[in-house]
C-alpha cells in the first residue's frame, strides 16, 4: 500500500546529500570527510617530519625551497551510516493521501540520496516491540528496486509506543549514525524520551514530521463519533465552529511543542504536509530545514 512514486522519479535528487554534524564512520569509500588522517589523495596540511614517518610522504619540493623536511597530511573519505526510522503505527494510515504512503515516498527519496552518495542506508519500520520491517543496509543505487519493493509491502501495525520503539530499534553498536525519524509524532507526551535515547548513542538525529491537511483543517460538523485509529477508543463529540477553533489552537500548540522539543536538543526538525509534491518536499522543505544540501 505504501510508496506511490516510481523508482526512476528520484533521479532529480542525484546531486543532494545529507548534512552531517559528525564525521562519518561507516568505513572508507564514501564521500564524507573523516576525522582520521589516512593515506589518500585528499591533501589537508603539512607538518614537520618525525622519525617513523613514511619517506614517501615527504614533500621534496618544500625541502628544496625551505631546507626542512615536511610531510603531506591527507584525509580519508568515509561512508555515512544512515538509519531511517519509519513510523508504521495506524495513526499514519489516515488522511488523503495517507501519511504512511507519503512517508514511504519520503523514506525512499532519502534512501536514494544516501545511496547516491555511497552511504550505508538502513530503513527500519517502527513496530510494537521490534521493528516490523528491516531493509538494508544498502550501499549502491543498484539496490534501490529492492528497497522500493520492500516499502511497497509495509502496512500499519496498530498502536506503537514511539519512545520505546525508537529506543529499542538501534543496537548498542550503532554509534555516530545519522538517524532520520519519519513520523506523525502522535503521542500524547511527545517523543522526547526516544530522541534522548538516540542522542545517548551519539547519533545525529533528524525528525521529519508528517502532517496531513485533514489534521490541520478537519471537515467535521454535527454529532460525530471519533474513533482513534490506533486504540479504537471512541469519543462522542458535538462539533461546532467553536470546537474546531479550539482544536486548531490545540493542534498548533502541540505542533510547536514537538518542534521546540527537537530544537532544544539540537535536533533538526522538518514538518512536511502530505498534500505537497514529493520533489518540493525534498528539494525545498528538507533543504531549508538543513537535512539535505
Amino acid at each position, binding site marked *: 500500500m505504501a510508496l506511490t512514486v516510481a523508482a526512476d522519479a528520484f533521479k532529480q535528487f542525484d546531486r543532494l546529500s545529507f548534512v552531517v554534524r559528525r564525521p562519518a564512520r561507516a568505513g572508507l569509500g564514501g564521500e564524507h570527510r573523516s576525522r582520521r588522517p589516512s593515506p589518500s589523495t585528499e591533501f589537508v596540511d603539512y607538518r614537520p617530519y618525525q622519525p617513523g614517518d613514511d619517506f614517501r610522504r615527504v614533500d621534496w619540493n618544500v625541502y628544496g625551497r625551505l631546507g626542512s623536511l615536511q610531510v603531506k597530511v591527507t584525509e580519508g573519505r568515509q561512508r555515512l551510516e544512515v538509519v531511517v526510522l519509519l513510523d508504521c503505527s495506524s*495513526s*499514519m494510515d*489516515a*488522511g488523503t493521501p495517507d*501519511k504512511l504512503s507519503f512517508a514511504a515516498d519520503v523514506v525512499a527519496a532519502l534512501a536514494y540520496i544516501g545511496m547516491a552518495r555511497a552511504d550505508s542506508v538502513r530503513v527500519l519500520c517502527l513496530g510494537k516491540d521490534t521493528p516490523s520491517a528491516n531493509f538494508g543496509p544498502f550501499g549502491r543505487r543498484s539496490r534501490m528496486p529492492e528497497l522500493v519493493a520492500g516499502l511497497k509491502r509495509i502496512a500499519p501495525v496498530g498502536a506503537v509506543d514511539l519512545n520505546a520503539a525508537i529506543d529499542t530499534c538501534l543496537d548498542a553498536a550503532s554509534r555516530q549514525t545519522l538517524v532520520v525519524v519519519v513520523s*506523525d509524532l*502522535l503521542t*500524547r507526551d511527545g517523543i522526547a524520551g526516544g530522541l534522548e535515547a538516540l542522542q545517548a548513542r551519539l547519533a545525529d538525529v533528524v525528525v521529519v514530521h508528517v502532517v*496531513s491537511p485533514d*489534521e490541520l483543517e*478537519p471537515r*467535521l*460538523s*454535527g*454529532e*460525530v*463519533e*471519533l*474513533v*482513534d*485509529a*490506533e486504540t*479504537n*477508543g*471512541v*469519543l*462522542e*463529540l*458535538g*462539533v*461546532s465552529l*467553536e*470546537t474546531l477553533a*479550539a*482544536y486548531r489552537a*490545540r*493542534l498548533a500548540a*502541540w505542533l510547536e511543542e514537538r518542534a521546540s522539543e527537537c530544537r532544544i536538543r539540537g535536533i533538526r526538525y522538518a514538518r512536511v504536509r502530505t498534500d505537497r509534491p514529493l520533489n518540493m518536499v525534498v528539494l525545498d522543505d528538507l533543504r531549508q530545514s538543513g537535512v539535505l544540501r
Partner: protein
Amino acid sequence: MTFLAPVALVALAVPLAIYVIHWLFGSRRRVRVPAIFLWAELPQARTGRSRRRRPPFNLLLLLQLVAATLAALALARPVASSDPPRHLALVLDASGSMQATDVAPTRFDAARARAFDRLRGLRSTDLVSVIRAGGDATLLASGSPDSVRSAIAAAQPGRTSPAIREALALASSQIGQTGERRGQIVLLTDGAWPPPEPVGPLSAPVDVVAVGGGSENQAVSSLVVRMDPTGRGQTAFVEIANSAEHAVRVPTRLSADGAPLDERQVDIAARARARLSVPLPVDAHRISVRLLGHDALQLDDVLETTAPGGPPRDVDLLGRFSDGMRRAIESIPSLRVRAADSGLPPDLTVLVGVLPPRLPSGPLLLVDPPASSGRLLGVGLGSGARVQASHPLLQGLDLVALENESPSVSGVPGWAHVVLGTLQGPLIMEGRLEGHPAVAMTFDPSVTGLEKSIAFPLLVSNATAYLLTQSESVATAKLEVFDPAESDIAPRPIPSFQSVVPLSSPTNGATDVWPWFVTAVVLVLGAEWLVFGRRG
C-alpha cells in the same frame, strides 16, 4: 411472482420504522481520526438540532433495511408460478342439509367462504367454473376468479338432496373442454348424502372440502290426516325423526287452521322415529306440526298438510252418470253435489262418458271417457300392465272387485301415469290433463256391476280425496319440496372419485420462494455482523 399472504406485506413498514428510528435517534457519524487526545475536552455543540439530521446511508443501515425488507417479503409467502393456467371447478353442495347452523352462520355460508379462500390462491389467468349441486346440477358461472365471485355470493341452498353425481360429471365435462389447463374439482359439501352411483373416471382430481359435521337434528318427517270411518272426525298421523346420536325430548305443537290444537313432549331414542296420532275435528282443514325445540336445521321443524275435512266441496256431475255414481258421491261427507247450472266454478267435476272440448275448471274425475277422444290417445300396447298398490287411489281397495273390468283404451296417454292396468290397457290413471289434476277410470262401472260392490264408493272416495289434495297443492307446486332424507344431517363416508389425473397439492405449480428470502435474510444479517465486527 404472487403472494399467498399479502396481508403480511404490512410488515414492509418495519424498514421504514428502522429508518425513522435512525433519523430520530440515529447513530452518530463515525469518523476515524489519527488520535483522539487532540479532541478531548474541547467545547462541544449544545444544540440538539444536529441529532435530527437525515441519517447517512452507511453500509450497516443499508444491510438492516435490506434484511427487514426481505423478511417482510418472506412473511407474505411469495410464490413463483411457472406451470400452465388452471381450471378450477367449484362444486357447491346446495342440499337442504347445507342450511344447518352447526357451523355459523350455516354450512352453506361456510362452504361459500372456503370457495372464496380457493379463489385467493388463483391467478387472473386461471379459469373457474362454479357448479351448484341442488336437486340437479347447474353451472352458475365460468370465467376468471374475479368474475365468478358474484355468482358464488348469490348462490343459495335448496331443499332437496344434492345431485353430486351429476355435478361432478358436469364439472368434469367443463374441465375437459379446456384440456390445456390443469384441472381440479373442489367439492364443498357437508357429506350428508348417501354414496352416489359411480361417476366413472373424471377429467380432473376431486378435492373434497368438508364443512360441518354434527348430527344434532330432529324433524317432522311425515304428517298424514285421514277422515275417520264414521265421518265425524279426522286423525292426524305424525312421525318425528331424531338423527342425533342420543335420545331427545322434543316439544311438539299441532295446529289446525292456525289455532294451536295439541302440544306435547315427545321422547325419541337416538337415531329413531316416534309416531303419534292426534284426533282432529271434522272441520279442521289446514294442519301443521311444529317442533318447538332448537336444533341445527330449522327447515324440517314444520310440516303442513291439508286435511280431507273442512267445509263441503261442490261437485258437478256431468254426462251419463248413473244413480250408483251419484250415491257414491253423495255418500262422501265432505262433498256436496250441486246443480249443474251454478255460476260458480266447482271444486271437483265428475265427467261420465263425456269429455267436452273445453274442460271445466278444477280437478276432473273421468269415468269411462270416450276412447275416440284425442286426449286419450296413447302409445305402447300393454305398457299399462302394472299395479301401484301403495298409491292413494288404491288404498284399502280390494282389487279383486276390478278383475272383470276391461279398459276402453289400450295405450297410455302422455299426460297420465298408470295406477292400475292390465295387458289390455290401463284401468285407472292419474296425471295432469291440460293443467287440470285428473283421475281417469277407463271402464264403465255400471256394466260389470262394480257400482253395486262395496269397493266402488271406496274407489270414488279415494279418487275425490286425491284430486282435492292435488288441487290444493297446485298453489305450492312451484316451491321446491323438502326432501325428508335431508333431515339426517350427519356426514357419511365420502367415496373416492377416480380421476385420470392424480390429485396434487393445493400449492402445486406455485413454487414457494420464501425459503430463498429467509436464506437471503440470514446472509445479510451475517454480512451485517461481519461489518459491525470489523468496525468495532
